[in-house]
């Protein structure tokens, strides 16, 4: 099943498979969608709006990727979570083709994400 996300406003439209989204980071009033092949796309949505749109489009879909909002500034696809380094506040994402992207959310959010994954015994890779 294809879980596509369509982000559309008056001038732009972005259509992307939710499985290909590696992460989304906030950039002022816009957001940057980072795909698993390293491609990035800036969309004119704030992170809160984006979160709401993604939830509405993927809600109750079987097999939908697990997207997690980590702090206010980023949202990640747990399928690509590679490493968490609390002292350095690093959240490293890695795709199958070896592309890596590092995010720097807050340490508290990282700690909570780490505990969440530990508690639910989620294997990301």
């Amino acid at each position, binding site marked *: 099943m294809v879980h596509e996300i369509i982000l559309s406003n008056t001038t732009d439209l972005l259509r992307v498979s939710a499985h290909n989204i590696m992460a989304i980071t906030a950039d002022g009033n816009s957001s940057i969608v980072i795909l698993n092949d390293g491609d990035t796309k800036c969309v004119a949505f704030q992170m809160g709006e984006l*979160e709401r749109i993604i939830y509405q489009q993927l809600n109750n879909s079987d097999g939908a990727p697990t997207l997690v*909002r980590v702090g206010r500034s980023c949202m990640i696809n747990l399928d690509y979570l590679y490493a968490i380094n609390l002292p350095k506040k690093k959240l490293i994402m890695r795709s199958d083709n070896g592309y890596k992207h590092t995010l720097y959310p807050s340490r508290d959010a990282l700690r909570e*994400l780490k505990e969440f994954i530990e508690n639910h015994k989620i294997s990301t890779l």
Partner: protein
Amino acid sequence: MNEDKIKDNIPDDDKRITHDDMSDTSIRIVSGSMPVNRTPEEEATETPTWYAAPAEPPTPRRQEPPQRKRGMSCIFIIVIAVIALVILFIFFIGKAPVKNADFEHNAEPIEHAPIVVDDSSAMVVTAIDEAPGEKAIITINQDTIDHVILRIYTLHGGKAELHLGPMDPNDKDYLLAVNAADARADKNEPVGMFVLNGSIKAKGDNKNGFCAILDGQVSIGRQGETPLFERVINEGGSFFRQYSIVNRGETVAISPKGKSYRRALCVTEGVVQVIESQNPVSFETFSSALTDLGVKDALALVGGDVFVSCPSDTISRPAGTHFPGESFLIWRP
């Protein structure tokens, strides 16, 4: 293309931009088949909230007691306290004296002495032209009193005038030119009230002595407020303030200490004299020497190695230094 999905991109009830209540220190699952951690409030309600599984019940950001807010409050309190202390200092303790504000060569920083208005000692003496109509001359003597070498320039006739700024080097048509008022190093203007030909050039009352020039005649005195100032303004005269160091034959203690070449404008029984020490002395020693010399009233002039010129003087003196905001007292024949 799934048109319905495009249309449903933003539902009607969510088309407005809502407040993003996400905390920077928490996580929230947006999509997927993760176990849902519902809060008791959410379990109680049949209608689930739009988000899937908040790790913690999201609380509005404004209701959180962030440490940053507390830090800002502390900074605000500290700033208010500092402002209150400054206001207390200004209004109850007094203004701190501005050191090094006055310019005086080879002399210590001058502290502003408070004005002492003593009506009993307030007196103005005015120079008298002994022989009006005759040619003005200057006589030069030298005397030594208590190891203080004094060079005495006595003016007979002539018209005094005040000059602000550097003198014209080609101007030699004068009997004597000496620096008049001290200058503020920070503003490059004379210290204290300074009136040039009826025009106020600087303001301030931090020195109790004054020199007024009306119709070329010099008057000196020691008063905080003097009616001569009004006359100077009305009649286009000149006026400047300096320390009064001898008043009615008595020495007047002033705050500047240290030793330097001292100069004074003296008026004794209507005779104008400019007396200069040829060796560095303190104001106390200098004023004592003046009283021993018989001077009745004396007003300090700028000391140190500043420019002083007397074309008829035979001694060789250095060219003298100039400084911004300098002023000259000049006698012309």
